[in-house]
């Protein structure tokens, strides 16, 4: 027991990388949100203007970026819940490493079908639909 002094070296460990990712995804999502409120505000201008901007959201490249956005938000949300558990759950600090692997697993399990459904139309449009 206790061969490894767990948690004494922060730099370079999972704790540092989840912190870096949490910060980057938080900033990225924040800037997207600013733009997203602006584009949605076009519903106050005219249906045509709004539909024109939304049409760009349906193009292949932007569609791919939406997968990135969803992945970023999902990581930030899951890791945020992990931070909250570490702070408030008595056993949180002890299990924080296991929780890091758990959110990684949940992220993959949700992103695989999520990516499939998000890209379905784009892939069908580009490579021909089976139906």
């Amino acid at each position: 027991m206790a061969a490894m002094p767990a948690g004494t070296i922060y730099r370079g460990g999972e704790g540092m990388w989840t912190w870096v990712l949490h910060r980057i995804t938080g900033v990225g999502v924040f800037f997207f949100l600013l733009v997203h409120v602006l584009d949605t505000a076009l519903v106050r201008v005219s249906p045509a203007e709004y539909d024109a901007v939304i049409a760009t959201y349906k193009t292949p490249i932007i569609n791919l970026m939406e997968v990135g956005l969803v992945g970023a938000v999902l990581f930030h949300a899951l890791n945020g819940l992990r931070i909250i558990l570490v702070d408030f759950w008595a056993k949180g600090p002890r299990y924080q490493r296991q929780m890091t692997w758990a959110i990684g697993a949940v992220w993959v399990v949700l992103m695989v079908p999520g990516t499939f459904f998000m890209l379905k139309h784009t892939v069908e449009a580009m490579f021909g639909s089976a139906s």
Partner: protein
Amino acid sequence: MSTASQPGPVSIPAPRSRTRQRSNYELYSWLFMRVSGIVLVFLVLGHLFIMNILDGGVQRINFAFVAGRWSSPFWQVWDLMMLWLAMLHGTNGMRTIINDYAERDQTRFWLKMILFVAAGFIILLGTLVIFTFDPNIG
């Protein structure tokens, strides 16, 4: 008359410099990040699921789709809460990051000013759009 020999009340002078009135702002901000985070899990992940994944995802979104949703107070309240909580949470997070990296007082001050003005504008604009939406426009 034995009282004279007894030690008088000891008075301890107040410390010369008291730390100035402490504010609990950072504590409330820390708590707000966690409480808003929990609510945002439902609002934001639900929003992303409905808009990007469910039933054809982004391909089915247009003006008529928005009009249909905002005809219901449920989605109006959902979007309004999501707008305010996400903007306040995100702005508060950005404030922390500016405090971490901007070392000069002037730089910190102006970056935060830009942040707060931009955030205030977006929150007001979004709120106005939700409350004044007109399905028969144009």
